């Protein structure tokens, strides 16, 4: 347990979405921080940059990318990484994250977070690339677990062992997506608590919560819905293991007014408050 760990605590945040720019500036709602989708701000100017510059004066920001393609067999894209570094210097986020996945090869980008086979070779490949990225950016990055729908015949270990090994060997931090663990646990029929138990607690720097679409036999990670009870329960279990972790809710589609998301965020606050009270007694 790492209740005494000195990891940076941002509290409870939301994804920064275009629809909410004006409300945020006008009402300065009680949200502790915002996560931006990095690629949306890799543009020269105009509205996105304008609003980000103003919102970052009021709230801590973290950068969350979808295109690093850390597991791809293509060479790292240094032009992209230079853009990330420039944005990092311009907006000074608290940290930078991307996903444990690949998004394309042979110069193409599928813009999807595709799973990797869980093998020793792939661990070495990804560790080496994370280290190069961290050296280039001059800081540790956070790597997020994705939701997945397939298992490769070539995999020889669990996803949690794969993530744990990579984070430890590359000395990166973890963005643990609780909804993704839940989605994958249903799709691949594992116990999500096994996943939580395997995580190196000190490395879990951020948590994602989100809603999804239940298709009956499987679940699709759509970020267009409210968080379901099982995911809240898993969140509680995560906080029991890791202590307080900076938490944010992802909503990418069917985006409601900010107030609705704040109500959901307050639910996370309540859960955390209760658990931290229990564990400090």
């Amino acid at each position, binding site marked *: 347990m790492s209740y005494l760990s000195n990891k940076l605590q941002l509290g409870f945040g939301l994804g920064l979405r275009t629809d909410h720019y004006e409300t945020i500036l006008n009402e300065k709602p009680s949200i502790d921080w915002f996560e931006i989708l990095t*690629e*949306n701000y*890799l*543009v*020269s*100017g*105009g*509205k*996105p*940059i*304008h609003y980000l510059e103003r919102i970052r004066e009021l709230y801590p920001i973290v950068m969350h990318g979808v*295109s690093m393609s850390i*597991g*791809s*067999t293509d060479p790292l*894209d240094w*032009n*992209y990484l230079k*853009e990330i570094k420039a944005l990092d210097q311009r907006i000074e986020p608290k940290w930078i994250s991307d996903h444990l996945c*690949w998004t*394309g*090869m*042979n*110069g*193409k*980008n*599928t*813009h*999807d977070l*595709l799973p*990797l*086979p869980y*093998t020793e*070779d*792939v661990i070495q*490949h990804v560790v080496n690339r994370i280290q190069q990225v961290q050296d280039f950016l001059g800081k540790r990055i956070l790597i997020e677990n994705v939701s997945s*729908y*397939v*298992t*490769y*015949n*070539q995999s020889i270990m669990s996803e949690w062992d794969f993530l744990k090994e990579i984070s430890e060997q590359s000395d990166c931090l973890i963005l643990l997506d609780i909804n993704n663990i839940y989605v994958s646990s249903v*799709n691949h*029929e594992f116990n999500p608590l096994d996943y939580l138990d395997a995580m190196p607690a000190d490395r879990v720097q951020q948590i994602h919560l989100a809603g999804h679409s239940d298709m009956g*036999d*499987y679940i*699709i990670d759509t970020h267009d819905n409210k968080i379901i009870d099982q995911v809240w329960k898993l969140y509680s279990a995560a906080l029991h293991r890791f202590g307080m972790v900076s938490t944010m809710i992802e909503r990418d589609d069917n985006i409601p007014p900010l107030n609705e998301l704040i109500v959901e965020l307050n639910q996370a606050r309540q859960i955390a408050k209760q658990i931290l009270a229990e564990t400090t007694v």
Partner: protein
Amino acid sequence: MNELLTIQNSFQDFLIQDDKEIYQSIVDTGKVSAETRLEIYRNAYRYRLIDALAANYPILKIYIGDDQFEDLGIAYLDKYPSNFRSIRWFGDQLVNFLNDNLPYKSFPYLSELAKLEWAMTLTFDAADSEIIDIETVKSIPPEDWAKMRLQPHPSTYLLSLSWNVVQIWQELSEDQDPHEPIQNDHPVNWLLWRKDLINQFCSLDNEEACAIEAMLKGLTFNEICEQLLQWFDPQDAAIHAASFLKGWIMSGLISGISLGTGSSLES
């Protein structure tokens, strides 16, 4: 890394061209077949990119309707899979695609509507820049005017459109029924730029469009006047160019003025 390379290659070929080789690498569970599992990815891939296309061409989507737009998106994606890091740039070849392929090329106003919308996206997130006011240009001594080079705001785009697609665009963005497509006798010049974060556009007569085009090429004020000699005598050309310049400054189109090499005036 040969194994990973093979898996990624066949997975991507599956997403992009429905190649089935990846099936042999996927575990088939009793509950959900490998086929169903893989189809989740293929659907997500297609719909994410079609949504991205719709974000860049929202009015074209309304104009041709959801089903037609989906067919267009799938056909476009087959021909031009993304090689961009940021999905924002997906759709950069749509104008060419509409011009080159049936059935779209039979309806040439579709590619013009796409051309208008793509230019709008470029205007929307072009680089920021200061704009100068009229005092800046007043401070330039008359003898230096000839060698002035005007720096247009980076969001400035000039389009020549043969169809009434701006009208159609406006009507659809206001939820009105669009006019029938009509081809003009002569192409019309349209200017797009951004002011106070909001996209602006207006039509231009040929004289002013010619002057803007000369400015965008980086020509001097004197050279802009020379371009206008096809319509005016020398004295009138200068008067017109000066009045254009005043209008551009008032509209927030001019980011700076440089005098020859080195010296530059910005607000």
